[in-house]
């Protein structure tokens, strides 16, 4: 008996220690196609790191944001890696809820990540999240319809050009609408697009003393332009159309122009899901009074909460998922057009990627979007399509609801702006601004 004891003991110890070393990393992400692909390829990471097991929680944006915020702000440690955006990262970092990202292997090439993203995801000089996916906004148009009518898109269109084009291209009898834009209420829905329209038209959300500047002639001009454009050349049901509804309209050939996320380019060119692949043209987002804030900046990035139980393993994964190697992995799997866009300059230097018609405009947009300078005059906040304070999620949605109501004809633009001004004033007063 004694002879078996030692080897048995040794086996037991080894077994237990292997089990003990199995680290489970729980990841919370949004369910965008790029993240679905990441989950699909993640076994490659698990092969290289056999002591790490990945657990995925993937759900839609608003839900995951709620889950992540509740978890991170109460330090509950349910997640080891969370996917957050340019909006949350500085807010979370300021509160000390995230671990700074510091351990990079030699070939990671931090400088390759777009500076605008690195800055947006940092706080007081430290980087708190690694960008997995980046997007800006641009104008997407049906080149074939433009050619038919003999129209030419300028290199930097202005909104007055857009109105002219839309009027020319609308053919309601045939069921083709000149333009489709977001109308569904929400700080990340219609207000994301409207934020850029307002910025470039010379509007601001607040003046330097944190007084809201919504009930102003600039806002009225910009919003009236939006509503008139949609009434004349937009599809019915616009006040409930979000990104997906508009994508469906575009891919089924019902709209001629669309200003929205650069990531839509990949979806429009996907021959399996789009009827208009190969017929599209891409141009920079239109400007008006100023180029500042005319196109947004957004990134989904991996951050590690302070309360994460497996922080080291988590960081390893975050580094792997945002590395050049991973991008190459995706290219080998589904082609270059499907790699996570908008994060690394090297992706855009790649000649294979440059073949995609949306690559160049996306690159230009990503490099010129500047959240620290979103408006025509100095403002006390950062963020292009959002105001980087926690309360924005609420009052941004309220303003979105009011504008959507004006779009649906339920109120006048004046009333909508007046109500919005009042709502935002109350909200920031409640939150204690100016601080």
């Amino acid at each position, binding site marked *: 008996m004694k002879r078996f004891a030692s080897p048995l003991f040794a086996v037991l110890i080894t077994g237990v220690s292997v089990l003990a070393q199995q680290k489970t990393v729980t990841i919370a992400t949004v369910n965008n196609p790029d993240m679905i692909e990441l989950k699909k390829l993640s076994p490659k990471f698990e092969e290289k790191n056999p002591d790490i097991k990945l657990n995925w929680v993937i759900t839609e944006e608003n839900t995951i944001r709620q889950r992540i915020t509740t978890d991170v702000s109460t330090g509950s440690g349910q997640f080891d890696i969370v996917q957050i955006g340019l909006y949350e990262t500085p807010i979370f970092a300021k509160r000390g809820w995230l671990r700074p990202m510091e351990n990079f292997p030699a070939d990671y090439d931090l400088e390759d990540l777009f500076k605008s993203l690195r800055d947006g995801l940092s706080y007081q000089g430290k980087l708190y999240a690694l960008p997995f996916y980046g997007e800006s906004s641009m104008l997407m148009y049906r080149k074939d319809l433009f050619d038919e009518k003999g129209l030419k898109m300028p290199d930097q269109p202005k909104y007055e050009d857009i109105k002219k084009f839309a009027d020319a291209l609308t053919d309601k009898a045939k069921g083709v609408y000149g333009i489709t834009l977001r109308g569904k209420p929400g700080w990340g829905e219609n207000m994301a697009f409207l934020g850029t329209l307002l910025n470039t038209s010379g509007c601001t959300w607040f003046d330097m003393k944190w007084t809201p500047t919504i009930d102003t002639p600039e806002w009225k001009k910009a919003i009236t332009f939006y509503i008139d454009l949609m009434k004349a050349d937009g599809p019915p*049901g616009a006040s*409930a159309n979000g990104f997906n*509804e508009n994508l469906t309209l575009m891919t089924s050939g*019902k709209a001629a122009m669309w200003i929205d996320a650069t990531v839509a380019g990949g979806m429009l060119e996907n021959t399996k899901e789009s009827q208009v692949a190969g017929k599209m043209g891409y141009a920079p987002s239109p400007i008006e009074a100023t180029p500042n804030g005319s196109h947004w900046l957004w990134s989904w990035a991996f951050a590690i909460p302070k309360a994460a139980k497996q922080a080291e393993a988590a960081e390893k994964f975050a580094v792997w998922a945002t590395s050049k190697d991973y991008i190459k992995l995706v290219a080998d799997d589904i082609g270059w057009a499907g790699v996570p866009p908008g994060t690394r300059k090297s992706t855009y230097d790649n000649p294979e990627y440059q073949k995609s018609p949306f690559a160049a405009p996306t690159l230009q947009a990503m490099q010129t979007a500047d959240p620290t300078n979103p408006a025509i005059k100095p403002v006390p906040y950062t963020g292009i399509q959002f105001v980087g304070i926690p309360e924005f999620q609420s009052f941004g949605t309220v303003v979105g*609801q009011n504008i959507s109501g004006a779009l*649906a004809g*339920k109120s006048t633009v004046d009333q909508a702006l007046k109500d919005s001004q009042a709502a935002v004033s109350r909200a920031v007063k409640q939150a204690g601004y100016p601080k």
Partner: protein
Amino acid sequence: MSVATQQPVVGPVGAPASAEKPNLLMALLEAPSIIALLLWMIVPLAMTIYFSFIRYSLLNPDISGFAGIENYQFLTEDESFWPAIINTVLLMGAVLIITIVVGTLLAVLYDREFFGKNVATLLVIAPFFVMPTVSALIWKNFIMHPVYGLIAFVLHKLGLPAVDWFGDYPLISIIIIVSWEWLPFAFLILFTSLKSLDQEQKEAASIDGANAFQLFFFIIVPHLQRAIGVVVMIETIFLLSIFAEIYTTTSGGPGHATTNLAFLVYSLGIQQFNVGIASAGGILAVILANIVAYFLVKMLAQNLKGR
């Protein structure tokens, strides 16, 4: 020896010998439910009341301290507050009326025999099985969408203009969706309740010369009284806090046309992770629910009596 007549509401029936034992046993039967629900009610309620009187924002730990009635003021002074209350009551009332009237008629119809009745019954109940978020998405995108939805398709074929359901008739659209979801519930309870209606009673009345309408109003509806009462009470509790359908389709808009109290609490409170405001909203919702329940109980006192 005993007669099946109306027994008094108070006191046990018959049972001579063991007068003390039933009392203790009876109390024990009820106790677990009461205690469980008591804990479930008190602890979260106490926490919510407490949170509603302090400043507590998950994202903004800077703001803290006693808030007095600030949170309540923030909600009640919002210009969407009273519209939200009205929308809540409208939504609840409309769905109640539709589901109960149509549910009763359907239950009576399905009480008859006809070919393939079992399959048809399952089809009628089917909407209840589907998740509310999915139902809402199906209605919004497949059926009601003015450009690529099925209703638009049919209207187009008939040469009529498309209807922008969520733009022009937002609350009605939500009412349609919610009624469709809850009709099976009302139908199921009323249908099952009809099964215990004495066939003899119906036949006796027929023989006495009663026609279909008289049969309906004087025999069937009274028998369904209690079941209708239950359906009303249960549906009301659920309908007061409808959230998923609104969130998925209109996000409370356009304007505040489809914002009900639950959505307002989400929009002004949870969306910005302000627990103080959300808690105050929860308490206000409880107050509204109590007021509605008070009126309902008064109206339905007859229906809710025991045996």
